[in-house]
């Protein structure tokens, strides 16, 4: 069984197979993201009770925490694909890394933006140079650096490799962000959820946050699969299979 599973993995590592697979996957994850998002927003904004300490301003948590999680998860995913790409030299892994970067940058920005909007009424300041905030800002710059570097190198293969190095080296920053509230005395509050511990939140608040996080996960998968298809369109433009697919598509569109 494990053999057939690994054979399948390599099957989908070929751009041609992944192109057709992702065509089916992205609408599924997009729908899922929409449903979970509506559910999470409904609970989070309309049903969940007010927070005793922070008033209604705490509701920022429903975008802030999921976006921050995704910004870290996406960078780790980029590092994972980069290692895979460097070791096995699979063509798909670099496409995955490239496709993940803009969404990761977006979530890092949302994390900083919503954090500033939360910090102002609660701490009295938009920004402090504490460990958590600074390392998240560094993560945002790592995303921008990755995108600038890979788009500046004209040869796609060289760009892939340079980008992979940035992704792998930069991933050291992610655990620093995650543990910063434990390692240093920060203005930023501690984790809302710690593995192996009962969360310090009301159940409905917690579920709203988890629904939003799942929605962001599904959204990320949808947009990444979609973007990989766009990249296959350019990278495989000389491939016979792709040209046949495009020709059939335009014939189908006309009739």
């Amino acid at each position, binding site marked *: 069984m494990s053999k057939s599973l690994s054979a399948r993995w390599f099957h989908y590592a*070929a751009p041609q197979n992944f192109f057709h697979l992702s065509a089916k996957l992205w609408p599924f994850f997009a729908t899922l993201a929409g449903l979970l998002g509506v559910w999470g927003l409904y609970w989070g*904004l*309309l*049903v*969940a*009770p*007010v927070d005793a300490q922070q*008033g*209604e*301003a705490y*509701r*920022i948590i429903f*975008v*802030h925490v999921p*976006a921050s999680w995704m910004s870290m998860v996406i960078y780790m995913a980029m590092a994972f694909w980069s290692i895979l790409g460097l070791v096995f030299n699979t*063509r798909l892994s670099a496409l995955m890394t490239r496709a993940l970067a*803009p*969404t990761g940058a*977006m979530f890092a*920005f*949302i994390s900083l*933006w*919503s954090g500033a*909007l*939360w910090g*102002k*009424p609660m701490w009295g300041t938009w920004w402090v140079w504490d460990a958590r905030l600074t390392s998240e800002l560094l993560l945002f710059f790592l995303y921008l650096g990755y995108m600038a570097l890979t788009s500046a190198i004209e*040869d*796609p293969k060289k760009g892939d490799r340079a980008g992979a190095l940035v992704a792998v080296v930069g991933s050291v920053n992610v655990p620093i962000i995650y543990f910063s509230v434990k390692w240093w005395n920060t203005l930023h509050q501690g984790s809302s959820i710690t593995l192996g511990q009962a969360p310090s939140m009301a159940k409905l608040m917690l579920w709203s946050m988890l629904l939003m996080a799942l929605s962001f996960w599904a*959204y990320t998968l949808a*947009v990444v699969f*979609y*973007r990989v*298809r*766009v990249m296959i*369109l*350019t*990278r*495989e*433009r*000389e*491939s*016979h299979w*792709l*040209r046949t697919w*495009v*020709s059939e*598509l*335009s014939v189908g569109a006309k009739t």
Partner: protein
Amino acid sequence: MMHWSSWSAFWDMGGYAFYVWASFGVTFLLIALEVWQARQSWRLELRLLSDAIQIEEGLSKRANTSASRATLTKVGVSPQSSPFLPTESAAQTAEPAHARESLGADDQSRPSVS
């Protein structure tokens, strides 16, 4: 069970309206932008590729004129490496050796076709 007593109370967010709505607003604005951008790039790349294929197919039917070759180069398609174009037979145009070499180097820089 609804938390709010009225819609105006909901929009007011206990006095934190600006902070809450600016957070949610920018989040969904950025997501909408990203979706729009992805959709645009898909349409653009698909059109570029299908245009290039149509030009090549038209070319392979008609004579392989130098003018239409120039058009191909403009849209970024190498007529030599296309599987849809008849390869120039050696009898028709005997290319000098150095031209063939540069052609081979060009092929290597392209993504491999498998």
